[in-house]
């Protein structure tokens, strides 16, 4: 885990310095279906932003583009001022970066998925140390002891040797969070991480994430339907509709006094 608690009052958007994330004129098409078109926004270092909006509004696509799970159809994404997948060449042409260049920047980003996606052929602890050992080059002992403290942190300190399939959904998701944190990411993407869970298991997972939010300065992008959670942990909420940001503000303002008609309707429907 990186340095504790700098973040409670950390950056909101617009603070000085290079933004952690920049979307510039981003376009994403799936065949003829245009999901994002000319999308631009910035996220400051340490900022936690919740993306809300009806399904199909492009929220998850934004996370998947950042994680390089989808290919950008147009525009640019910058992380700490560096291009993620495409750059403007000197002649102004848009060129794709080589996979090795992409891989270097991608290391700063971690993601937790709706379906956990733990590796079933590995034990819990093996899931967590796999990337630290084989990507960051940590020794097994070092990675193991870090993994153990992460497991303690998510309340699963005694389950390291089990296989993920023997855990409940909520426990699997907490392992997935530990696995993502083991890479010491600067940016953590949370894609509907409680949507696949039974209601009684949601609380533990959100508790772990609250803890992460309160004790680290990791920049977070969240897609979630847990509005109370979004309100508690995020600095800013962005409301999406058809690939565009139609409204953004601090969570209190967004939830108690939405301006846009679409936002009002959306919040009424889900709250």
């Amino acid at each position, binding site marked *: 885990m990186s340095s504790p608690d700098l973040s409670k009052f950390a950056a909101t958007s617009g603070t000085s310095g290079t933004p952690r994330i920049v979307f510039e004129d981003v376009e994403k098409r799936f065949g003829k279906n245009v999901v994002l078109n000319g999308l631009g926004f910035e996220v400051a270092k340490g900022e936690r932003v919740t993306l809300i909006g009806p399904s199909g509004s492009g929220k998850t696509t934004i996370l998947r583009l950042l994680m390089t*799970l989808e290919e950008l159809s147009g525009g640019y994404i910058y992380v700490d001022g560096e291009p993620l997948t495409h750059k403007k060449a000197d002649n102004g042409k848009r060129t794709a970066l080589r996979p090795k260049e992409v*891989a270097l920047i991608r290391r700063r980003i971690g993601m937790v998925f709706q379906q956990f996606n733990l*590796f079933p*052929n590995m034990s819990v602890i093996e899931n967590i140390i*796999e990337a630290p050992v*084989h990507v960051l080059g940590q020794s097994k002992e070092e990675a193991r002891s870090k993994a153990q403290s992460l497991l303690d942190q998510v309340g699963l300190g005694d389950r390291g040797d089990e*296989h993920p399939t023997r855990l409940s959904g909520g426990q699997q998701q907490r392992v997935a969070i530990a696995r993502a944190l083991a890479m010491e990411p600067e940016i953590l993407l949370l894609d509907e991480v409680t949507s696949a869970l039974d209601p009684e298991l949601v609380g533990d997972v959100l508790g772990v994430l609250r803890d992460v939010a309160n004790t680290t300065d990791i920049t977070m992008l969240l897609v979630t339907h847990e509005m109370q959670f979004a309100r508690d942990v995020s600095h800013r909420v962005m409301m999406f509709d058809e690939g565009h940001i139609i409204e953004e503000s601090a969570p209190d303002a967004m939830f108690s006094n939405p301006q846009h008609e679409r936002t009002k309707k959306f919040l009424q429907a889900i709250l």
Partner: protein
Amino acid sequence: MHWDWSIARDALPVMLKAFFEVTLVVTVVASILSALLGLIWAIGLREMPGALSKVLAFVLSLLRNTPIPLQLLIAAYAIVQPTGWLSHTSSLAQYQHRLIIIGIVVFALQYSTYMAESYRGGIESIRSGQWEAATALSLPRRRTWQAVIVPQAMRAALPSLGNWAIAMFKDTPYLIAISVPEMVSQAQDIGGNNFSYIEVMTIAGLIFLVASYPTAILMRTLEKKLVY
């Protein structure tokens, strides 16, 4: 038809020897080779650039769609014979040894094409979330195959790989085509010398049954145990 126990008694040791020294050796060695090659083909088909992967797919389908006896004859007499490797032997044993090696190569290649299909099914059965998690952890492609995809694909493919190995075992009498002294050809020789085939062929059938039935049961148990 008359059953002669003395023929059976004399034939059994010879046939068992041929079984253990040829039939079993060819099956085990060729099974291991074809399981390795099949995995390489399956990964190659997915990872190689489009044109290369099409060439590989074409070669595999050529192998898959031609009969094994024909491949054995081509390998032994059209490809290896002209090199002189088969004729420059110091003894009959060495000559037969080399024929067995040719047999192993042909069986390994042929069955690797089937096993590649089993692996392909196994690989395709892995949910995309596994690949995505590997990307999210920045695992290199090679490591993703090695640590995430192959172990899971292997589990999914294992029952079918086992079935192919058993099928190969039952195909070994095709080695008669290139005069490899495997068990059935030995049986045929003994039968011919005694003008009676019933004993030797019954024994051959029983040996095949005794060897493959437990293997099939073992595979089925393994299959059940492989659930995560």
